[in-house]
């Protein structure tokens, strides 16, 4: 119950931040990536603001025995740079550049332009399912 409410609050704050910062507008996102053309630096401010706040949050973690509303921290422990990581990130960037949408803004945009956002989100979930199936087949 408490986890659910905190997750919902997190999602709402996150979605509001994406919309306010302009990330739900693919034209602005592509404008940010268009450094050789008519560059729009807005997204650098979005990322900068988010990273600064999170950098402070990370400093608090070692001082906490446990999270406020959970029993323990579940943080990524992998540190190896793998072909999957780099190849996956490279593919993701290509998809991001093509339509100017990444997962968060794609989902948040469901209230802005429902049909377009849903097309992107359903295709994204299909892509995730492909990876899931391939992983299942290779293990």
């Amino acid at each position, binding site marked *: 119950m408490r986890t659910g409410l*905190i*997750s*919902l609050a997190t*999602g*709402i*704050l*996150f*979605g*509001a*931040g*994406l*919309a306010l*910062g302009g*990330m739900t*507008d*693919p034209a602005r996102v592509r*404008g940010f990536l268009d*450094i050789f*053309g008519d560059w729009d630096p*807005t997204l650098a401010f979005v990322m*900068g*603001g*988010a*990273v600064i*706040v*999170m950098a402070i*949050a*990370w400093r608090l973690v070692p001082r*906490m025995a446990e*999270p406020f509303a*959970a029993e323990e*921290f579940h943080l*990524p422990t*992998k*540190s*190896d*740079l793998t072909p*999957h*990581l780099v190849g996956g*990130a*490279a*593919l993701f*960037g290509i998809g*991001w*550049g*093509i*339509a100017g949408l*990444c*997962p968060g803004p794609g989902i*948040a945009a*469901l*209230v802005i332009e429902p*049909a377009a956002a849903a097309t*992107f989100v359903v*295709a994204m*979930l299909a*892509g*995730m399912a492909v990876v*899931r199936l391939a*992983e299942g087949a290779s293990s």
Partner: protein
Amino acid sequence: MTLPGFPEAAPLAGLAGGVLIGLAAALMLLALGRIAGVSGLAAKAVGLGGSGIRRSGAWMFVIGLPLGALVVMLMSGGIDASFANPVTLAIAGLVVGVGTRLGSGCTSGHGVCGVSRLSARSIVATLTFMATGIATVAVMNAFGLEVL
């Protein structure tokens, strides 16, 4: 406020939006002990793997995203946005879905949470997707492909 030389830019709105995103990710980290990575949480919600949070929690986060955008939309009287055609959106979505699962994250998990933690994996992933994103837009522009 505008930036000299960049009449289109909205630096203050961008910074405010970024701070909200940072606060959201900080809430997830400090309250629940988890990374606010959208691709992982979305995958988890629909049962395609992803982070270790309970599925109900992942759903609540995912549902919150459009609700948050709706709040901004209602308060600001509308959000400017132009989207690509359905075929382009479907191709992009498919590539984003495959890429984020293979690469274990997207702009939020790697770009915000991982970079701010100085994770080597996230810094490499972020530099990589920024580079290919920039290259993709540059190549599309060079070929005169206008999608928006």
